[in-house]
């Protein structure tokens, strides 16, 4: 871990990986969505409207994974003070916010024809909305606090405190009565989907993972480079002052 925590080495290695991740993202995303939206059979109750699952489930899954990643990175940042940990968490936040918004939006579109309402304040929907606000809060800290070390510390605490919400989202459908159905994929007794629907869904989830890795690596790279540029600017200004 210490090896990769060196920003220069991280930059070199991640620049080799990202084009491949990007390529695989495109391939799996196109394949998964085409498979799910056009080839997979219709559901016996919902017809074609269930196809929103191929976007909704991967987005909702990644919205949690992304926040979990930020929480782990924040722990590393607080305890070991690795230079890359804060940057990784910061880079992931907007990506996770987009996943969360997408999950809420697609779920709402599906809710109207299936449940009969766009929105209901049940435990699953409410806790996912709280997750969106946690992402906003986390990003706001980085923008609002001038001192970067202080911003990093406050943001890390926000990420850690917010992580309490993750098991609540995941188990809300088991702990309380909700309108949202329980898990179809990760449950005892195997998936609740027919294999013809399950495989395209798994492909879409893989595609969303690859998308996440690609975009977060890109964002970390740009954060590192932005930092290097700022360092160079400061050095330049100092040299000019010394010469002038």
């Amino acid at each position, binding site marked *: 871990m210490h090896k990769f925590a060196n920003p220069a080495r991280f930059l070199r290695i991640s620049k080799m990986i990202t084009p491949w991740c990007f390529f695989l993202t495109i391939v799996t995303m196109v394949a998964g969505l085409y498979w799910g939206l056009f080839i997979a059979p219709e559901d*016996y109750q919902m017809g074609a409207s269930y196809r929103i699952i191929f976007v909704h489930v991967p987005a909702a899954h990644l919205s949690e994974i992304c926040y979990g990643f930020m929480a782990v990175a924040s722990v590393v940042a607080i305890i*070991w003070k690795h230079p890359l940990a804060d940057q990784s968490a910061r880079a992931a936040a907007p990506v996770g916010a987009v996943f969360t918004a997408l999950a809420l939006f697609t779920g709402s579109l599906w809710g109207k024809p299936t449940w*009969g309402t766009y929105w*209901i304040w049940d435990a699953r929907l409410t806790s996912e909305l709280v997750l969106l606000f946690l992402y906003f809060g986390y990003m706001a800290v980085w923008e609002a606090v001038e001192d970067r070390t202080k911003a990093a510390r406050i943001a890390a605490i926000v990420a850690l405190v917010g992580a*309490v919400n993750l098991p609540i989202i995941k188990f809300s459908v088991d702990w*309380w009565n909700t*309108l949202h159905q329980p898990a179809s994929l990760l449950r005892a007794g195997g998936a609740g989907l027919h294999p*013809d629907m399950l495989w395209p869904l798994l492909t879409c989830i893989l595609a969303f993972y690859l998308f996440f890795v690609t975009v977060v690596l890109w964002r970390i790279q740009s954060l590192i480079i932005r930092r290097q540029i700022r360092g160079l600017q400061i050095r330049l200004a100092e040299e000019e002052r010394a010469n002038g």
Partner: protein
Amino acid sequence: MTTRAGKRKKKRLYLVLTSMTVLVLAVGLVLTALQDSISLFVDPTELKERNFADGQRIRLGGLVAEESFSKDADGLTYHFDITDGAETVSVVYKGSLPDLFREGQGVVVEGSINQHGPFVATEVLAKHDENYMPKEVVDSLKKRGVFRHAEEEESI
């Protein structure tokens, strides 16, 4: 690594661990205390067990009982029973029903307690289960007589 830096690291580690434990415990206690208000609906058994005031607005959830559905002559007022396998509550509802509504389906209805007659619902929502199947598969299962709506299975 100097031992002093190592000590500081350990201190931070313990700080994170203890504060997270306290936080999780606190949130857990709050959620347990709020159990009843977080749950979206009560089932017919809870409805009978808990003493709700007459006229109190609640949500009631369960399966639409088989052969309980009927429509009034106006074509807008529906009567059906909601069951959880143990208890059954009669419901009357005037309005439009969601597409998924039918006997054996999970539903959540909102309305007010009426101790002198059926539960008067003002909103009916269909609950979808976690199972997805192609129509052809369901048809062939039905043909062989082994298909069961997942929710019916649970309630038995």
